[in-house]
């Protein structure tokens, strides 16, 4: 009893930090205090003080958690210190994987009944306090549960809780679309600081990439980076936090060497394979938990180099799920080979075989004498056209391209090498060339749950003009790019590329050379845009040919399967 009282005093001093941790002991202390009457009036006063502070805290949740974390770190309580970290990190990581974040409220409700009976309080104040403690304890327990199971979209918790389907989804907005909110930026900076191997000095943390140039006010909520200042310049050598394969991958992303959603996902998976091969479980740690924690700073780093795509997010979710599903008695070598095999299976099934299936269905849609219009460089569409050409379909292709990326030239080279007859125009000439076209094939970066197609900027324009000329528009997309997000316009969530790419020198004059000096001049280089479903006639996936509006059905079927 004396011990618990001592603890109680100790805790009362650090009043805003500790009581969560010592919930159980304190509950016992209160009851004993109440039963012993006036002996502990001083403690009662302190308790009341704490109650009031807690009520205040419940209003300011965010600052609360941050201060708790720093308080705990000061105390050096290791087990609790890791608990809030995965919650913040897993929340931030879950957002890029574009799945509705696990619902903290219903998940906590599920384990809530469990500790509640243990706390049967006798009197009202203690009862309230105990219930509050229980709720916080449950939240902490659920967070620890999440830490072990970060890939699960809360589905484990949901079916247990009654009437879970209609719970409001408390989504945490991804950081990369909240750049105009200084609190979010501070949180990100702190998170990157924390993602270092404990015991290292701060020089070896993941650097925070700074925005570049004047941002158009409509897009002040997005990052805008310069290609000339890659994140790797700010890393110290050697970087012990980040695996060199990941550093290389991050550089390739930020410089645009690896571009296109399939290429990025495959590169990511290959890099993770290397990471897994080089991984050794430290003593006293479980592979399933530690490896996931290892991957987190890598994912933050890659996110800083270039925001993750929907396909990469889905791949990461899959890997994390596989890692956390490894049974604890599995030996390390066996576990690693199993993971490598899983990754290979994912690449083979979701990307390569899916492309084959899509090509087979698409070839039925291509008839002899067709004039097919494509935009930019989509690996899937190029594959389809090459396959159709192999199967001796007679068609010709019009490649539409746009500044500043000029990706269409790459597609043009690949098609011409195969011997397909091609025409090449820029996107401003599309209404000139469209009367000749019989079909339009477009690739997609992601398919959103409300039927909108997210793709390279300019795709929606082509679909619009094709619709005006009554030309059918077909979108080809593998199912691993389907994502649960919804979006109606191209502003709320997008990527801003380096604005200097728009500058061009014609006839020896560069008009926009000094755009930074002009106070009222801004350059906007968007990367993605969303196409409304009424412009798209058909989506060809490996599951078949579906209309745009059937995307949520496919997602539901996939979730049930998993």
């Amino acid at each position, binding site marked *: 009893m004396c011990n618990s009282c001592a603890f109680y005093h100790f805790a009362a001093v650090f009043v805003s930090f500790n009581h969560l941790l010592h919930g159980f002991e304190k509950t016992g202390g209160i009851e004993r205090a109440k039963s012993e009457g006036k002996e502990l009036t001083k403690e009662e006063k302190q308790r009341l003080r704490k109650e009031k502070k807690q009520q205040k805290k419940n209003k300011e949740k965010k600052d609360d958690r941050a201060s708790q974390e720093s308080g705990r770190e000061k105390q050096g309580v290791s087990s609790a210190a890791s608990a809030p970290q995965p919650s913040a990190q897993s929340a931030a990581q879950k957002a890029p994987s574009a799945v509705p974040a696990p619902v903290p409220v219903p998940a906590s409700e599920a384990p809530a009944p469990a500790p509640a009976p243990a706390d049967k309080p006798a009197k009202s104040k203690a009862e309230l306090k105990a219930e509050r403690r229980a709720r916080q304890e449950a939240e902490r327990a659920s967070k620890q549960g999440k830490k072990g199971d970060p890939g699960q979209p809360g589905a484990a918790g949901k079916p247990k809780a009654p009437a879970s389907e209609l719970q409001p989804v408390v989504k945490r907005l991804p950081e990369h679309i909240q750049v105009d909110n200084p609190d979010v930026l501070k949180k990100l900076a702190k998170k990157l600081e924390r993602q270092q191997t404990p015991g290292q000095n701060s020089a070896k943390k993941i650097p925070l990439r700074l925005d570049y140039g004047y941002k158009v006010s409509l897009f002040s909520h997005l990052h805008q980076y310069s290609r000339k200042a890659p994140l790797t310049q700010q890393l110290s050598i050697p970087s012990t936090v980040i695996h060199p394969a990941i550093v290389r991958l991050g550089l390739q992303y930020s410089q645009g060497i690896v571009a296109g959603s399939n290429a990025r996902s495959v590169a990511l998976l290959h890099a993770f394979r290397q990471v897994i091969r080089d991984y050794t479980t430290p003593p006293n740690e479980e592979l399933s938990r530690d490896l996931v924690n290892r991957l987190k700073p890598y994912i933050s780093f890659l996110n800083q180099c270039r925001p993750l795509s929907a396909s990469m997010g889905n791949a990461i979710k899959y890997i994390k799920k596989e890692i956390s599903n490894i049974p604890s008695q599995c030996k390390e070598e066996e576990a690693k080979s199993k993971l490598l095999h899983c990754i290979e299976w994912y690449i083979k099934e979701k990307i390569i075989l899916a492309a084959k299936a899509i090509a087979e269905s698409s070839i039925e849609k291509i008839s002899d004498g067709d004039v097919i219009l494509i935009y930019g460089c989509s690996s899937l569409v190029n594959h389809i056209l090459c396959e159709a050409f192999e199967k001796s379909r007679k068609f010709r292709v019009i490649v539409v391209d746009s500044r500043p990326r000029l990706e269409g030239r790459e597609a043009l080279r690949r098609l011409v090498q195969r011997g397909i007859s091609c025409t090449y*125009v820029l*996107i401003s000439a599309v209404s000139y060339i469209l009367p000749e076209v019989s079909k339009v094939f477009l690739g997609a970066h992601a398919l959103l749950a409300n039927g909108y197609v997210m793709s390279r900027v300019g795709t929606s324009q082509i679909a619009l003009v094709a619709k005006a000329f009554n030309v059918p528009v077909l979108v080809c997309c593998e199912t691993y790019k389907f994502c649960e997000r919804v979006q109606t316009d191209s502003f709320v969530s997008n990527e801003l590329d380096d604005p200097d790419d*728009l500058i061009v020198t014609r006839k020896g004059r560069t008009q926009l050379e000094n755009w930074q000096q002009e106070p*009222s001049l801004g*350059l906007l280089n968007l990367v993605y845009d969303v196409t409304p479903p009424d412009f798209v006639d058909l989506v060809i996936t490996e599951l078949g040919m579906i209309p745009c509006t059937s995307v949520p059905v496919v997602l539901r079927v996939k979730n049930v399967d998993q």
Partner: protein
Amino acid sequence: MPGPDKETDLTERVEAFLSDLKRGGSGAGPLRGSAETARETTALLRKITAQARWSSAGDLMEIIRKEGRRMTAAQPSETTVGNMIRRVLKIIREEYARSRGSSEEADQQESLHKLLTSGGLSEENFRQHFAPLKANVIEAINELLTELEGTTDNISMQALEHIHSNEVIMTIGRSRTVEAFLGDAARKRKFHVIVAECAPFCQGHEMATNLSKAGIETTVIADAAIFAVMSRVNKVIIGTQTVLANGGLRAVNGTHTLALAAKHHSTPLIVCAPMFKLSPQFPNEEDTFHKFVSPHEVLPFTEGEILSKVNVHCPVFDYVPPELITLFISNIGGHAPSYIYRLMSELYHPEDHEL
């Protein structure tokens, strides 16, 4: 002798003008705006009227038609030349009719009655000689020149009626008329302009720098982002190369996409076009409508091997149908596209539609 000298001087001027037209169209010579071309054409026609040898209106019209055919053949896409020639021909007809004494009103009305009963001016062969005709015609051409000088200002004066504060306005490429229009509005109102750069010539860059120097918040976007950004745009204000007889436009390429995007979002599309751009042509002739320039603007020679195996197109103009246009703003006020045919009948005589 003054006579032959004047003639050679005149022919020199005409030849110089023709070669300028030919060079300007290919992009090699100095790029001149349509207003400049119109003024130069009119000045040249005035010189022809003053110095060439003619005795009756018919002779003068023949001379002008001949020179006009040569000028339009030098650069078919530069329609202002043909428009000015037709204006001058109409002036000559009017002055002749006035000199003859017939009332102007009866001549101008193209009523069904007139068509049925008289056959009208087609019986006229303009052979009568009138002494003051030369002076009258030159005076009228001077008036036309004054009108041309003031077109841009007249259009800019209407700017405040159409632009309110805090608007987002979108435009494409570079138009001096629109630049003056927006610059005038910017003196009193604050608004934001988004300029689509209009590849491959990227004239939008110059427009953006000029607008930002005038203190307007400007953003440059790539052509591919037109539809993506259109949902935030309140108005689209564009210039054009030619206004066609049906109310459609022949504008810089990319304008049709812009017009479709504006229609999709129900954003008004306003065209700032002075009257000298109105041309009696219709867009039906597919092969003469489009003008192409060197494809190396699109796919440069540095691309190497694939160049020989690929067809590359670089059209300069786009056709925009009149259904997509909301309003024309010209130096004589604002009009709906359906009114253009009426304006045309006031500016040009039907027999001059074919030079």
